[in-house]
């Protein structure tokens, strides 16, 4: 139990430090990697709360997919760092104020949990909560689930409509057509009578 608590504090510390790194590091690729670490240690914390499926899904979806896109974008846009930092100090007080409100909220929430003495809901499905989660998702939350599919479809349309463009005038090879070339249409074999050349001078 104590070891578990120790782990929690370790992961919580890593999460916080990594999150701090995200907003303070100058190099944007480093910042993205910090965000990856934040997600990863958050997943570890969820795991400690026995949210097995959600924790691993967080790694699969966020670390494995979303952050890869982040990395693609940040790496390739090659953002110049200096101008980005100008507003940082100016907006710091506002940020701190918002953070303070959030903290108060969180404390309120924790206070409520402590007061209510609600034990964390026990694993209803026994050993794994993935079955429980699946059953809830596909019975009670059936309609939201299908709407999520709709939203994903809209995401696909938006992504394609906004990024894909046929560039005019770009010459490119079509390797498939190159390979499919039939030699008979390119080379004509001509039969001709052999000519008698000049005898080389002896």
């Amino acid at each position: 139990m104590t070891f578990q608590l120790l782990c929690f504090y370790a992961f919580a510390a890593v999460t916080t430090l990594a999150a701090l790194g995200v907003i303070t590091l100058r190099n944007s690729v480093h910042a993205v990697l910090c965000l990856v670490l934040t997600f990863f240690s958050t997943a570890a914390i969820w795991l400690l709360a026995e949210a097995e499926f959600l924790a691993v899904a967080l790694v699969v979806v966020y670390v494995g997919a979303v952050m890869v896109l982040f990395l693609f974008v940040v790496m390739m846009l090659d953002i110049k760092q200096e101008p980005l930092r100008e507003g940082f100090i100016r907006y710091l007080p506002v940020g701190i104020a918002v953070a303070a409100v959030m903290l108060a909220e969180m404390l309120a929430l924790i206070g409520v949990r402590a007061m209510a003495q609600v034990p964390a809901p026990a694993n209803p499905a026994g050993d794994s909560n993935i079955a429980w989660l699946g059953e809830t998702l596909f019975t009670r939350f059936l309609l939201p689930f299908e709407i999520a599919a709709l939203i994903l479809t809209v995401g696909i349309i938006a992504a394609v409509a906004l990024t894909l463009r046929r560039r005019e005038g770009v010459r490119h090879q079509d390797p498939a057509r190159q390979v499919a070339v039939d030699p008979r249409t390119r080379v004509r074999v001509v039969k001709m009578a052999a000519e008698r050349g000049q005898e080389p001078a002896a």
Partner: protein
Amino acid sequence: MHADLLLAAWTLAKILAISVPLIIAVAMYSYWERKVIGWMHVRMGPNKIGPWGLLQAFADVFKLLFKEIVVPANADKPLFYLAPVLAVAPAFAAWAVIPFDQGVVLANLNVGLLYLLAMTSMGVYGIILAGWASNSRYALLGAMRSAAQVVSYEIAMGMALVCVLVLAGSLNLTDIVNAQAGGKGLLDWFWLPLLPVFVIYFVAGVAETNRAPFDVAEGESEIVAGFHVEYSGSAFAVFFLAEYANMILISFLASVMFLGGWLSPFPASWGLIGQGSWIWLFAKAFAFAFMYLWFRATFPRYRYDQIMRLGWKVFIPITIVWVLVAGCMKYFGWITAGA
């Protein structure tokens, strides 16, 4: 407290019992690769160092260790060193959930399959970061190609895993193997009902590890060595280790998911030969590992557009359809797997 330490030490011993043989396996696999391809080319392959050249791989390791790690001038130094570590860590950590025999598994996770997906999806970081940190055109190009390819085939692999899951009804790998047990030996395994998915899974696995014929990311005739062109010495060795560990991992996974893991291909009624054993698993994995080499010696390299087309336009549609087919099989009881 004392007991806890003892447990930790015992776990550590188990981990080393997996990792050390894995490292040796990687060394022997690279030796075997050169040998096999040599034979297929009617050459001898390595044969100077040690009996039949067996020590060749170890000689290579020592050579690499004593070479300089050249860090290019404009490279991002911390990330340059971080990239190989990020490549090798998931390639090894994934082994935590592989069941070698009934009950012989380091961590019998309930979400083992998802954990594997998570680990394989993390491998892409090593590639991208290596390409970016090197600050070299070839490395970056190779990294982008490789990352896009890995990511594309990961979808097909994930869908294939879902098919297995549909039949097995559990994310636990031991349960998945047990779901393939039955009286009929190899006819009970999942490769039969999931035949197209089985093929897709292994081919996607080859593409996922950037191996021939999908090795455009390091097609030496166009972009030299791809994302690790700037890596030398032991930093290169780490990438090499990660790549081969991943190949062996895919071989084991294909065996566990589709070929019944440690189960015997013969009916259980055949006595000793019908009993499950880790030997079966290793034999199956060896067969897959051999296929990797066979592919490399046999097939010409795919073009990049062909690779992407195969992944997106062939594999993904087939796996999507097969998820539903597998669902129907399971629901209407057309197959009795997992019973």
